[in-house]
């Protein structure tokens, strides 16, 4: 029963990891940019949800659409005004420094605006656990997992079926060919970044009801996103889902079997091992830059 409980907890956490990572994965796949400020965008989503909940009592899950809109606009502007400039002026590698600088600025701003204290959001349906066959399900966590899965499915359908999705996939496959077919690549990059930021914000809102959070957590969420992407594979929601669920299982499994201090070390060991053995991830195509 304990093992089953561990697996159930791992899956809930994994759904959240997957949603937090999917945007990071999309940017990495389409532009080759590693966005070190991704975790900061997740935290912005969490703080926006917290703020709305404090001010108006809106449930964080209902606050997701407006948060996604705000972050989409922010993400679009961020890419067009800053990241594209940096990539043009020097190299893809320096985008690491730019996004890291932005992450520092955002973290500091969040501390100034919301204070460095731990925050958490407790919706009305919190704290009424359901027991099914000896395994305890917290309704908050079930809602979080369901919301994560719905959003991931929505993104997958957008990418697969809509015109925007098709253009984004085309640019990811071959930028030059896509441009020759009349795609405005810069606009597509901005859109991709906007979508990525929107999903980061949504995962932040969900994160708020599951875990307590504070501004320095952004670094952790960026790293989580990276591990998820490396595990699952670049650029696809399915890869992010697989990677996220695996990471959730690994981290709850490690703290259950080896010790509560070791999930991070285990996570990085797996990260390095995956980079070496199968840099394309479990699902996903080999990508040129790795070797």
């Amino acid at each position, binding site marked *: 029963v304990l093992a089953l409980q561990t697996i159930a907890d791992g899956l809930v956490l994994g759904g959240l990891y997957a949603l937090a990572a999917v945007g990071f994965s999309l940017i990495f796949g389409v532009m080759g940019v590693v966005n070190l400020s991704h975790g900061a965008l997740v935290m912005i989503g969490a703080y926006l949800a917290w703020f709305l909940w404090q001010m108006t009592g809106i449930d964080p899950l209902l606050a997701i659409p407006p948060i996604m809109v705000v972050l989409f606009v922010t993400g679009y502007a961020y890419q067009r005004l800053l990241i594209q400039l940096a990539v043009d002026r020097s190299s893809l590698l320096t985008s690491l420094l730019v996004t890291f600088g932005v992450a520092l600025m955002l973290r500091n701003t969040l501390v*100034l605006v919301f204070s460095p204290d731990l925050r958490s959001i407790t919706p009305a349906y919190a704290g009424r656990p359901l027991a099914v066959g000896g395994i305890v399900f917290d309704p908050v966590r079930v809602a979080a997992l369901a919301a994560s899965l719905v959003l991931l499915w929505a993104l997958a359908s957008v990418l697969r079926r809509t015109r925007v999705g098709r253009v984004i996939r085309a640019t990811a496959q071959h930028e030059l060919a896509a441009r020759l077919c009349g795609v405005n690549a810069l606009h597509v990059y901005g859109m991709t970044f906007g979508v990525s930021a929107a999903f980061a914000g949504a995962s932040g809102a969900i994160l708020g009801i599951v875990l307590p959070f504070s501004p320095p957590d952004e670094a952790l969420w960026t790293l989580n996103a990276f591990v998820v992407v490396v595990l699952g594979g670049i650029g696809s929601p399915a890869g992010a889902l697989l990677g996220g669920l695996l990471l959730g299982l690994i981290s709850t499994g490690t703290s259950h079997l080896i010790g509560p*201090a070791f999930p991070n070390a285990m996570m990085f060991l797996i990260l390095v091992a995956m980079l070496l053995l199968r840099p394309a991830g479990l699902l996903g195509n080999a990508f040129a830059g790795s070797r």
Partner: protein
Amino acid sequence: MIAAAIRQYRHWILATLLLLVVLAFLPFLVAPFYVRVAQLVLLSAALALAWTLLGGFAGYWSFGHTAFIGLGAFAAGLFETNLMRGAPLSGLGAGLVVGSALCAVVAALVAWPILRLRGIYFAVAMLGVAQVLAELNNNIDAFNLSLGLVLPRIAAFGLRPEAVFYYLLLIATFLTLLIAFAVKTSRTGYGLVALREDEDTARMLGVPTERFKIAMFILSAAITGAIGVIYAHSLGYITTGSVYRTDFSLNMIVYNLLGGMGTLVGPLIGSLVMVVLTQVVLGRLLSIHMLITGALLVLLVLLAPNGLVGIWQRRSAQ
């Protein structure tokens, strides 16, 4: 080759020696606070130079070089507190050897798998290595390192402690500069330039890229480890958090970028400007320190992608 290089760069060498003479008298001329700042500049410069052996020359940007600071610091600390009690100065000497040797061994072990990765993947794998080592350092009970380690006090020639570490770091920076100069002007140095510009072509033309980059990785790690040992002693008491610091790894890159990637003057100028700016000018603005550092990083990449040396070169070319 070295003789020709010395003739070619004789103005630079003369300037360096003059600067060294001036710096040797600095602790007697300025207030202790500024000796502290100078010590920090030298620490940063030495680290940035050690990093550039691999990152600047070979183009392999490590995002986890703080692994070697931590490894060197704790290896030397354990060695000195357990085996060399009562002889702090010779202990420091032995600690330097032990620390850098362990870093060289660890670098040699991880070099072969990790240096097969390129670009962002290498950068992130090194970040992972640093994190794993830090976590292990904190969580393996055999050495009880999570409580931290108190190192023997170093005192010499009746100097104030900040002056002692100032001189140690001055020597370390100068030696690292010498090593970097020797590498850059050697056959290996030219091979590394070829490797950085296009690794596959260099390999095709007969440059032993694998051997060169592994050698640079080990050399860079050993020097970083030795600097880590000195840094640990200057702190006196070390914990995982105070030597395995991600901001060290990032700062090594920032100093190089600000000064000029792949040059020898670059890391020196970069650390001078950045340390003076963040410690002296922004020292009083603690609550928005990160905000300003982040903004500086962004501006730096946008305005001076080739560093201050790059601006100067463009000026003199016109």
